[in-house]
């Protein structure tokens, strides 16, 4: 019967008292661990999807909305921009721009966004095909890894898109041609996992078709290859936005943003700035939650303290008996400290299980709204610090009762009977 065994037995001997302390401690540490997990995975998601994009050009409106929609695909588009106006930025010979990726956003299939773009988007996100090939004709799509897994899409499958970004049977383009899957992307950990990619022309095809329909014309769309006409020459069409990577971040490049904002009907936004603004806004909520979690942890520390302190009164005789049997005051101090620390460690372990479990559950729900796969099965290094903090709280909560236990007046206690 070692001291450790004895402290464990003492803890288990008072199940209600122990449960109260454990639940509080687990709630506090669990909430903090959950915040750590969420934060690290959200940050990871935002960072991975930055994809060294220097500028996003789109319709005027909220710059944050433009960034969220074009880069993270979690908000509605700000509107469309006519290619006639944007064509300068799409030209490969632009002196400042290394890569310009057009995006056409607005249709979806079973709530997964169909994005009209160019194949260079794969290079931008360093994604590659797992199977099949890239689109060669309008109405051919390449499907992100998570979309394929979730919807069970395979090469050769066909589907009808629907208008808008949410799943709504009434908005299905049921007269438009069907999309055909030609390739599946390998998981890249970026937003591409959650997207259905196709040529910009496909999106126009669907919408032209509908307009033609309304005008009473029947227009036949085949699966003929994409015309060899660069995108910027479709001056009668529109796109949603352009992702731009500069050749170098020089003065002229930085000036381009101001120029666009001041002199055109479009806006240009810098992802890093907008994301920092978003962090700052989310930070307030996260700080409030973190403060709440800290308070819960402190209260649970207090509950360990009170529980140990109150138990001393009941255990005065036991503690004196231990002295009679040969235990030094130091060992009594150790015993109580161990009880505090064991409670804290058990609370931490339950809290960790809770946080990872709920992260896994939350992850499944958040995947839809955040276009990102969250998991409860990873650990972050902050959790090691959390364990240290838990140990410290257990220790601090137990130190006063422990010293008190060491000072038990054995003769007086034992003669009281």
């Amino acid at each position, binding site marked *: 019967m070692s001291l450790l065994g004895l402290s464990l037995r003492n803890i288990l001997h008072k199940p209600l008292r122990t449960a109260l302390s454990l639940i509080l401690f687990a709630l506090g540490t669990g909430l903090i661990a959950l915040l750590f997990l969420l934060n690290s995975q959200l940050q990871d998601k935002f960072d991975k999807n930055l994809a060294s994009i220097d500028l996003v050009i789109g319709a005027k409106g909220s710059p944050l909305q433009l960034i969220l929609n074009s880069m993270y695909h979690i908000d509605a588009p700000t509107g469309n921009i006519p290619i006639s106006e944007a064509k300068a930025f799409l030209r490969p010979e632009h002196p400042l721009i290394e890569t310009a990726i057009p995006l056409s956003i607005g249709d979806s299939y079973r709530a997964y966004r169909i994005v009209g773009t160019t194949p260079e988007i794969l290079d931008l996100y360093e994604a590659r095909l797992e199977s099949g090939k890239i689109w060669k004709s309008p109405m051919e799509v390449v499907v992100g890894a998570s979309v394929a897994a979730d919807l069970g899409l395979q090469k050769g499958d066909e589907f009808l898109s629907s208008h808008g970004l949410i799943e709504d049977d009434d908005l299905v383009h049921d007269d438009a041609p069907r999309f055909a899957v030609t390739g599946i992307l390998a998981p890249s950990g970026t937003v591409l996992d959650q997207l259905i990619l196709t040529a910009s022309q496909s999106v126009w095809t669907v919408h032209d078709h509908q307009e033609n329909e309304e005008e009473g014309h029947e227009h036949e769309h085949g699966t003929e290859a994409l015309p060899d006409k660069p995108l910027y020459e479709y001056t009668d069409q529109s796109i949603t936005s352009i992702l731009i990577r500069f050749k170098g971040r020089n003065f002229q490049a930085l000036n381009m943003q101001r120029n666009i904002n001041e002199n055109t009907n479009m806006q240009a936004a810098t992802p890093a700035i907008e994301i920092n603004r978003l962090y700052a806004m989310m930070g307030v909520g996260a700080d409030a939650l973190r403060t709440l979690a800290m308070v819960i942890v402190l209260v649970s520390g207090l509950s360990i303290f009170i529980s140990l302190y109150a138990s001393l009164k009941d255990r005065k005789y036991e503690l004196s008996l231990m002295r009679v*049997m040969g235990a030094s005051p130091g060992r009594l101090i150790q015993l109580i400290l161990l009880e505090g620390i064991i409670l804290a460690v058990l609370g931490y372990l339950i809290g960790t299980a809770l946080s990872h479990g709920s992260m896994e559950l939350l992850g499944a729900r958040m995947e839809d709204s955040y276009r990102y796969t969250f998991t409860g099965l990873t650990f972050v290094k902050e959790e090691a610090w959390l364990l240290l903090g838990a140990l410290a709280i257990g220790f601090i909560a137990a130190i006063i009762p422990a010293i008190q236990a060491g000072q038990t007046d054995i003769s007086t206690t034992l*003669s009281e009977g």
Partner: protein
Amino acid sequence: MLETKNLQYAYPEQQMLTFPDLNFPKGQHGLIIGQSGCGKTTLLHLLGGLLTPKSGEVMVNGVNISKLPASRLDQFRGRNIGIIFQRPHFIDSLSVGENLILAQHLAGLKPDWDRVAELLERLNLVHKIKSGTDRLSLGEQQRVAIARAIINHPSVILADEPTSSLDDSNALDVIQLLEEQASSVEATLVVVTHDTRLKNKFSLQIQL
């Protein structure tokens, strides 16, 4: 053996208590009798090193325990002195057997379940080895307390009113057991009591 010289003790703001010199040879059993409030329990706590005397000395096995440093004293007590109290108390979270194992562990000895089982067998309690101590009758509890006092083969066993909360038949059983078990480990046995039922049980009696 147990010996005291010029033993004195005073509680704060109270009269000094002076105790007669005692001399119990190895294996001697004796009774210390006195009315309530005459310092019986104080004397027993002095003998067991639970209190430090104002003056004088307590020799247990030739060691002056009044002079031992605090940490050595606890260890010495655990190994050489077994104490039985008026009302038996245990570590509630542990079973009967584990309470005895704890006594070995805290005295710095190796846990020996064979010894625990053998001892409980002798006290007719081996079937209670896994029971919680609160499931025992008062008489049974006092017998486990005896087992705990003798488990480490102490040279001195001190008993403070071991029978006063027991009925006649239990009281006589317990005192007989105490004498038997003390003899079995050749320990000096000192019983402090005001229980007149014990008067004719001991040849050596000291009146306080």
